[in-house]
């Protein structure tokens, strides 16, 4: 069967052939891998990987996320996404990139809101300050406009994707 995956902005098209037991053949583009694997725990897969040139042990640790699996190998962490799911995500608009919206870049707590409803703001003007782990981040107006809605209060916990301040763009 075939998988189409994306890691670090790179697309992988993978052909997999299942042999007896826990033994798999992979074709990644023109590279061939033969892998024996052992499931050590729900989060830990041990692989014996041969690619014709060299062979070796690989320990992979996995966690599920909303957008794919996080996989840690040799201290490095990869976000691996399935192409089909990626497409769905974009269609459904789940977690889209929101440069025009005022939303925190990480889970945070609201520190201050230097604007109120009805205020006219200039592009780049601070509209809300959030803090995460002692680091403050100021979110600014993406364009000139008027504050029409404020969806958070000081000390509220907020998350990426949540629109904190809504601004109606000047025509």
């Amino acid at each position, binding site marked *: 069967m075939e998988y189409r995956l994306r890691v670090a902005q790179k697309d992988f098209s993978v052909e997999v052939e299942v042999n007896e037991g826990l033994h*798999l053949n992979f074709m990644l583009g023109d590279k061939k891998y033969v*892998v024996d*694997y052992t499931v050590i725990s*729900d989060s830990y897969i041990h692989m014996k990987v041969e690619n014709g040139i060299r062979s070796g042990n690989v320990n992979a640790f996995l966690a*599920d996320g*909303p957008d794919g*699996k996080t996989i840690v190998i040799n201290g490095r962490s990869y976000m691996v996404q399935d192409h089909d799911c990626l497409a769905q995500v974009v269609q459904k608009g789940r977690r889209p990139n929101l440069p025009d919206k005022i939303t925190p*870049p990480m889970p945070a707590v609201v520190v201050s809101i230097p604007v109120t409803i009805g205020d006219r703001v200039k592009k780049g003007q601070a509209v809300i300050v959030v803090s995460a782990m002692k680091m403050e981040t100021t979110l600014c107006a993406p364009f000139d406009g008027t504050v029409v809605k404020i969806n958070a209060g000081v000390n509220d916990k907020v998350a990426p994707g949540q629109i904190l301040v809504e601004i109606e763009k000047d025509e």
Partner: protein
Amino acid sequence: MFKKILVANRGEIALRVMRTCQEMGIACVAVYSDADQKALHVLRADQAIYLGASEPAASYLDIDKIIAAAKDSGAEAIHPGYGFLSENAGLARRCEEEGLVFIGPPSRVIQNLGDKTVAREIMRGSGVPIISGMVRAESVLQILTEEAGRIGYPVLIKAAAGGGGKGMRVVHTENELADACRQAASEAAAAFGNDAIYLEKYLKRPRHIEFQILADSHGNIVHLLERECSIQRRYQKVIEETPSPAVTPDLRAAMGKSAVDAARASGYVNAGTVEFLLDADGKYYFMEVNTRLQVEHPITEMITGIDIVRQQIRIAAGEPLGFTQSDVTGRGHAIECRIYGEDPENGFMPSPGKITYLQEPSGPGIRNDCGIYAGFDVPVEYDPILSKLIVWAADRNQAISRMKNALSQYVILGIKTPVAFLIDVLASEPFQEGKTYTDFIATHFEGWRQKTDEADLAVLAYIIDEIAGSRRPKAHNKKITGQATPWQTIGNWRL
């Protein structure tokens, strides 16, 4: 000796302090906020007292609540850890007033050394080299301009009440001075409630070298050698090591003596750290005294064999040091990597959240001072330090190898960490050659991205996980764990 100590902190440092207390047969009282109900320091304490809401002001920074917790629990002393109230003269003073022992220097010393211009004055008076700069804070632009001319550009604007890089600005020409001073003062006002600023000479490519000192209440003062902490991001230390690759035995003796002089001049008692900048010519300048246990104290413990927390407690109990400078010797080399919850590919942005899997490194010469566990939700409200990975080995090269191996065994799933970044820093030529200056990360690792030459392996693992069938609990089931009440499972009962 004390029978019970309250640890007014959280996370790895609270655990660190509690470990020594428990080894000394001293009971430990932890304190906690809403966000920390399941924190490791609460689980491991002999007793834990709830302070209040998650905001630091309502819990870990609330002096009244902490004093009350100490009294209610019968604790005789308070250890403040680092951060929070550790350098707050107010807590030390309240302890003095309430008959509790503050495990740290007297409030007066904290206050004096906390004001950088006062600290500079003390040092100047006792022959500790200070960087050329202003004696006191100033707000009149004309005077600032004159001082800058006297010191010579580039100059550094610093907040008198400051720390952590807030209110700091480098100014290269007189043109930039006015704006920079205004910005720095306003940043300082916002951060510390105090807009006082001053100027000092800006050193190019200095190293951050600090000396650990111990001073007892009988006038004995020793230093425990140096630590180099030049690898920093956003003015926060990331990697520390001892000995410094730049410090010769002669320089060590001279700087160590200055550190002890600084402690003596300020009337220091307990553990503290005298921070210096070391320039390319081997000249060093006093920066400040940190009047608390440092984050990076373990590397000093590793090479000297001295438990600094034990010494803090002994000193606070009035005991004499019991050893002299000549008894202090360093053996081998130690390195610490701070494991923050942050994303090094994205400007070291904070990354709070639930730890879904944890594999801690272990083995000879490896110490992991860790405040998290699998299942713990790292709060958004506090410092991003998850743990500190410390290694010891016979020499610097071996310590670097050991650290790289230990890091590559370290698996933290659920949030982002700088593990891969740290491996690359340790493996880099400038680090291996000891070319460690405070601009190291900006110079060599700006815009760092993880290498992807092993991405194939991640792809293989992904597919095997699909085929073998992940049996990991789904995120939406998570809430059940730890939230079960008797009423949810009443069917199991026999009445």
